[in-house]
């Protein structure tokens, strides 16, 4: 059943597969983001309560969703590297961490810029904001650990274990922060309700979300390729590859 997957355990096959995938993902993401962002900025209606500041939503929510799904993807990759000894899996975990950190930072920054006009402050110790901040710390820890090792094989495994420990802890952290927040703070902040979104707001959001998701895929492909060639630099196919100029 899983036999079709086996060739991809070979670094060379995966390298070329990622190389083939890269332009498709990149161009599709560029197209979707162009259409989606122009739609979001120019044509989508303003929110009846929040006015034009609602347009931040179209980057804030996609990056917040992606920041969590990338962590999950990283942990799954780390698990398959540790349990089934898939050696390429920890390469993909290492490739994903910086991307996740960037999207977490975007979610936090846009959240702050949205919170200032809506809530009157750049930052509130709201449960969702706080757990997003802790998620950023977890990402930075994984990246720092990965950079601390010279041997990238070892670095990938160590960072993978940390990612797994983090993924077990994330629900606990999220729960504890939510609980802490309700205990320490009254409902001074009127949270955004979740009314059914109008379709003219929904479609630009879907386009932006898919665009950002494909962008993550494209960047991950390049980082994955980098990880593969640095880990296999003694192999003849890598040597032929780097001395010939074409990709």
């Amino acid at each position, binding site marked *: 059943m899983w036999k079709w997957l086996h060739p991809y355990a070979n670094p060379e096959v995966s390298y070329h597969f990622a190389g083939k995938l890269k332009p498709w993902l990149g161009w599709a993401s560029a197209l979707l983001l162009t259409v989606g962002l122009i739609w979001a900025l120019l044509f989508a209606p303003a929110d009846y309560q929040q006015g034009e500041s609602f347009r931040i939503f179209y980057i804030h929510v996609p990056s917040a969703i992606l920041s969590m799904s990338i962590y999950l993807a990283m942990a799954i990759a780390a698990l398959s590297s540790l349990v089934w000894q898939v050696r390429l899996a920890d390469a993909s975990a290492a490739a994903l961490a910086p991307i996740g950190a960037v999207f977490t930072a975007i979610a936090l920054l846009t959240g702050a810029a949205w919170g200032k006009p809506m809530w009157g402050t750049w930052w509130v110790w709201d449960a969702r904001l706080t757990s997003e901040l802790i998620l950023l710390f*977890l990402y930075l*820890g994984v990246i720092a650990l990965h950079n*601390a*090792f010279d041997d990238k094989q*070892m670095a990938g495994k*160590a960072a993978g*274990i940390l990612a797994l*420990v983090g993924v077990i802890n994330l629900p*606990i952290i999220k729960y504890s922060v939510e609980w802490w927040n309700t205990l320490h703070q009254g409902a001074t902040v009127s949270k955004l309700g979740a009314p059914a979104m109008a379709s003219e707001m929904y479609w630009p959001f879907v386009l932006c979300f898919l665009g950002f998701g494909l962008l993550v895929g494209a960047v991950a492909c390049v980082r994955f390729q980098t990880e593969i060639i640095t880990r296999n630099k003694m192999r003849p196919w890598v040597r032929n590859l780097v001395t010939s100029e074409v990709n």
Partner: protein
Amino acid sequence: MSSLSYRQTFALVLKRDLTIAFRHKDEMLNPLLFFIIVVTLFPLGIGPQANTLAKIAPGIIWVSALLATLLSLDRLFKADHNDGSLEQMLISPQPLFIFTLAKITAHWLLTGLPLILVAPILAALLYLPEQSYSALFLTLLLGTPVLSFIGAIGAALTVGVKKGGVLLSLIVLPLYIPVLIFATSAIDTASLNLPYNGQLAIIAALFFGSLTLAPFAVGAALKVSTN
């Protein structure tokens, strides 16, 4: 080949670690001294008002305990890694779980337990309300082992790294947040004369969860870092 029971292995490793620690008493006392000094810095920075201090006392004590634990974690596996005895443990027929559990227990006995013993004195310095003392004691009793368990994972991951100290704090501190939240909230609740069983139960759950899972993670991490 002599076959040691799990209990004997555990006792042997524990005794060995304690003996080594008692030969370097200052290394054992330094984190404790750090804990006391950090706690005394807060009133100097904030001001001597009794009600302000009483309000933030649980947070101060717990944050200082986190930092003191971090300070002692760096050398949990370092000496064993440097002299090669860590590799001996990894290739020995006894399960790794027992070794790591024994080492973490020793670490807790040497750093967590002294913290619990001096905490009441520091709580008095910070005017902690009397009804909170039992909560402080119980949260420290259940919470400091969790700090040792989670910290051991970080220490095992960074044991092969040359300057691992700061990296270790970066990795471990975010994972300490749930313990900090529930412990301080238990002490706060106790100061209002309300039941704090719920928070205590969650800390106990964290304790048993980390007791069963952390030694495996530590074992896997040690295998990676010793290669």
